[in-house]
């Protein structure tokens, strides 16, 4: 997931520039959302295109089933399904947008949708569907509402979240209780110290990011989305904790450099005893390294649980908006989403009526089932931690400054001040 999110940030930077360029060659790119919304109440019939992101071939049957059901429910409709490969999706969407050939219904994560919405390429779904609030959970809807833009630019689709995963073998070896993993940053540092002293292994596996501040309830971005405000003394304290832990040798050296592969990679290699990951983490990890089977225990995320949202947006240029909206609603309705969640352990429906689905809430007793139960349980309070306004370039700045603070090259407050200044400059340019 991580590399894709970075790709999205790149898109955010590139879209306005390229659309300006593409605008010379094309007539009427952008700016048509009002007319489109007007006739969205027309008859549901005719052809529309649905674009998904890397669901083929594993979920071909599921998607084709959804499309068949839709065509059956609305006779006269015909859905063309496009599935784009995982890599390069931001570039592909960007090219489609510049050429004015964005599919009628497109799966876009909130950060992709933001850059397209800024250019007026996405329909405001709230203008068409007045039951949004009743149908979808608020956290998911909020992900498609942006400061400075009026409207909701996508129907929420599936949700994912993060939780903690611990290497129980490394815990036991270090004399720690895998059934009582850390629940706060202080405990994390304390247990990391114990592990370091007992076996020389690492427990902590990453440096903090903006999401960690949000997880501790600290402000990151101002309410109206116009400036960053994460240079608080509390944030500096968090950086100080990491700085001291790093000086003590409780973090692998790699975490501050480009050689850092990510905590899940280090966890899979057995180099660290802690990682965060989605509900499907155990299955993936065990597939990569079968020797970890039975050695992974899940626990709830430390602090505020993050929420990751996927949604489908409707193009404001769609020639058939009524059918496009109907299809987008159909793909994201409770029944379809619940079925999808059954096929992919670790993802959850964004529909309100699914939130007390007993099947999703129960665990089968395996660590995998337990992870699903914990993830689903924390979903109701989860929220989007990293603002969608944060681009790739900002993440780089934040990483550099935080690395400098943790390495002790400058004080935490200095690093935060610099990062906020630089990020605000970039934000103002958007």
């Amino acid at each position: 997931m991580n590399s894709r999110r970075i790709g999205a940030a790149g898109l955010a930077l590139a879209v306005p520039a390229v659309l300006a360029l593409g605008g010379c060659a094309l007539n009427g790119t952008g700016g048509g959302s009002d007319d489109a919304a007007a006739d969205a109440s027309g008859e549901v019939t005719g052809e529309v295109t649905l674009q998904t992101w890397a669901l083929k071939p594993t979920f071909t049957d599921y998607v084709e089933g959804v499309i068949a059901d839709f065509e059956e429910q609305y006779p006269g409709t015909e859905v063309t399904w496009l599935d784009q490969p995982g890599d390069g999706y931001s570039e592909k969407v960007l090219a489609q947008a510049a050429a004015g050939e964005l599919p009628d219904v497109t799966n876009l994560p909130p950060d992709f949708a933001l850059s397209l919405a800024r250019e007026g390429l996405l329909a405001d779904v709230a203008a068409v569907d007045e039951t949004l609030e009743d149908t979808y959970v608020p956290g998911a809807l909020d992900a498609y509402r942006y400061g400075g833009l009026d409207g909701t630019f996508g129907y929420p689709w599936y949700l994912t979240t993060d939780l903690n995963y611990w290497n129980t073998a490394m815990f036991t070896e270090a004399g720690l209780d895998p059934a009582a993993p850390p629940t706060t940053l202080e405990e994390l540092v304390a247990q990391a110290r114990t592990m370091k002293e007992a076996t020389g292994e690492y427990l902590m596996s990453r440096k903090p990011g903006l999401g960690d501040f949000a997880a501790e309830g600290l402000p990151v971005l101002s309410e109206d989305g116009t400036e960053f405000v994460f240079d608080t003394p509390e944030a500096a304290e968090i950086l100080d904790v990491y700085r001291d832990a790093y000086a003590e040798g409780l973090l692998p050296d790699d975490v501050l450099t480009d050689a850092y592969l990510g905590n899940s990679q280090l966890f899979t290699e057995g180099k660290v005893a802690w990682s965060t990951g989605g509900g499907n983490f155990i299955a993936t990890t065990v597939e990569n390294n079968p020797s970890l089977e039975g050695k992974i225990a899940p626990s709830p995320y430390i602090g505020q649980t993050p929420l990751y949202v996927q949604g489908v947006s409707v193009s404001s240029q769609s020639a058939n908006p009524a059918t496009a909206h109907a299809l987008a609603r159909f793909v994201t309705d409770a029944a379809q989403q619940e079925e999808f969640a059954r096929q992919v352990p670790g993802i959850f429906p964004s529909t309100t009526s699914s939130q007390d689905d007993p099947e999703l809430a129960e665990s089968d007793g395996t660590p995998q089932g337990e992870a699903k139960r914990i993830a689903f349980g924390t979903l109701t309070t989860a929220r989007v931690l990293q603002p969608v306004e944060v681009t790739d370039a900002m993440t780089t700045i934040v990483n550099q400054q935080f690395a400098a603070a943790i390495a002790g090259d400058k004080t935490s407050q200095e690093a935060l001040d610099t990062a906020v200044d630089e990020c605000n400059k970039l934000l103002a340019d958007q």
Partner: protein
Amino acid sequence: MMAGRVGTARVGPRRVVGARSAGTVTARSGTRGFSTPSPREVVLRYALLVLALFVTIGPFLWQLSTSLKGASEDVYTTTPSFLPAEPTLDNYARAFEAVPILGFAGNSLVVAAIVVTGNVVGATLAGYALARLRFRGARLVLGALLLTLLLPGEATIVAQYLTIRQLGLADTLAGVALPGAIGMLNVLLMRTAFAALPKELDEAAIVDGANAWQRLWHVGVPNVLGMMAVVAIFAFIGAWDDFLWPLIVLTTPEKFTLTVGLEYLSGTFTNNPRVVAAGTMIAFVPIVVFFAALQRYFFRGVDEGAIKG
């Protein structure tokens, strides 16, 4: 680059220039030429070569071994293990099952064929013209070509897509191949190769009454076969490995090239590194075949021309 290095290595032993410095003029070094190293140096050279070899092919070996590893073996370990404990070809079978690899490879071959032909023919013609023909604005053309090299591909990719789309070539293999059909860098390479030939050769041909085409075909081309092979291989690898451009141009899955099609092996919620590695290996085979077929020319130095150094 490659051709040049090998060329000097061949020329080396023929010219015995003498000892490297006064200090080493001894009976021992008397039999050795300028570029004949001492035993200690030989050992050092080979050690460095082996190191470079390992650094270069290490990641490749890792992919190869990953693609052969069984489902119950760890892929990511603290110290990389290159020998699969339970070797299996299962992953290759699964890659073939999951995606129509042969169809994708066929598409890639079509694109590569257009690009290689376009580059070998086009860059040779353009390179010769720039190196040997005198015409108004020759320097301007060369300058313009150099300037286009400064633009990063990412910056022009969307504009390029709009162009291809307006030509009606969106979602076609021709649309994928055309923008890469003549690479500016290849034109420069060919120009340099032609420029390196002694002018006297050309002048002699002119005296004999040869026109430009005859001079190109009978005097120029036979002497730059090595560089043409380099261009062909670069063009082939470039076309074969390109991912972003075909992804943007193509929409219909049946038309996908291999690099784009192999992406299907790593989906949103499913990603088995062993199968992905197997797919990578399959995509790699044609490059090896192509290189093996051309390497005779690839390693042919400039010194095999008409005038020997």
